[in-house]
């Protein structure tokens, strides 16, 4: 293939018509408290892993809802399961259970 000197970017917009919600639904069914999130970011503020990575549970929840699974996979890898986010959450989301269920859904090993 000839080199045209440019490449084509992959499509950036999130297409809600084609959103893959299976992982979100799996987690939601087993831990309905994830529906309570108001995306305030208290979890990300206190997150130990967030100091050295992009980790933020608020982001994870939102990405799950939008079906951005590849990014979810990258983020939850960094979680240390310390549970500080559970302490600060104003909506009492069971954050640790949420992380464990995502691992389960994505068949990720717990490191």
């Amino acid at each position, binding site marked *: 293939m000839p080199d045209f000197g440019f490449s084509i970017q992959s499509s950036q917009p999130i297409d809600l018509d084609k959103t893959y919600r299976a992982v979100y639904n799996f987690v939601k069914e087993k831990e309905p408290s994830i529906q309570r999130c108001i995306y*305030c*970011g*208290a979890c*990300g*503020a206190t*997150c130990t892993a967030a100091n050295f990575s992009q980790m*933020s549970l608020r982001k994870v929840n939102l990405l799950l809802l939008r079906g951005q699974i590849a990014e979810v996979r990258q983020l939850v890898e960094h979680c240390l399961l310390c549970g500080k986010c559970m302490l600060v959450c104003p909506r*009492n989301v069971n954050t640790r259970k949420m992380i464990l269920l995502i691992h389960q859904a994505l068949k990720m090993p717990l490191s």
Partner: protein
Amino acid sequence: MSKIAIIGGGIAGMEAAIRLSALNFEVHLIEKSFILGGHVKNWHMLFPDLSSATQLVEQQKNQLRDSVNILLGIEVIRASYTNNKYTLYFSDGSSNTFDAIILTTGFKLFPAQRKEEYGYSIYSNVITSAELEEYFQTDKPLYTKEHRIAERIAFIHCVGSRDDKVGNRYCSKVCCVTAVKQAMETARRNPGAEIYLFYMDLRMFDRQFEDLYFQAQTQYGIRFIRGRLSEVSEKPDSRLFLKFEDTLLGKPLRLTTDMLVLMVGMEPAENTGQLARLFNVPVGNDKFLLPKNLHQYRNLTNQPGIFLAGCVSGPKTIGETLTDARSAALEVYNYLNRN
């Protein structure tokens, strides 16, 4: 002549008393403290027009006619209902019989100590919005407890509101715009200070609120950051170290400030549950009293002759509270003239 008891001498109770005494009813205004005016008497100025709070309370006091029987330092301890009349037994041993009762006991401020991770009453430079409002009664700029001029001040929204951890899921409604108002006033007093507002949502729902927000951005350079404080710690120089997430950027955020202002929300006044039991009026999940419904019967309860006005039935602005009190007065009038 019909007799009406109004329990609670804040702005709602006074407004209802003014209206009902103008209709020539015999009105008894019962207040457990020794001074009328409730919370509003402690405040500096009112959003959105920055008018004087003291003036509002004084005007109301002047309008209270001599015909209103004002009972200070008195609480209701018992009540009974017979022949469409309520007999109230008071803490001073007296009792009296009434045809209708308006409950106007209002709210209490969320005790910020319960949000321990925010450091109120642990770190000296953490104050509440109510304390700041009272401080504004002086003309002075904002000083830290070490008497340095505060150069960086952070306001934290939703302290004790929208928080299941402290049992208050509801929004206290007035703190958003109060924070904007107080931030602007702080900017006037401490020129050049960096002022941050940390919010979850900015609920600028009423007329001219959005204008205040606009002014805060454009004239005062207030910095609005969407994120919720997770914890506060104190540095050796007694400045405060705060941890947030900048939720719009998706990055953790750290900030050191001289002072922290907690926008404390509303909870039902101390005796609300007791009043609910006394008069058999239901409470909502938010523990405020429930009216008959939330649309056309906002001042009525499921009990005949028991009416609600002001924050006893949930957080309200001052404008809403006064309107609510006038509406309750009319409901009482209709009830007493029902035959």
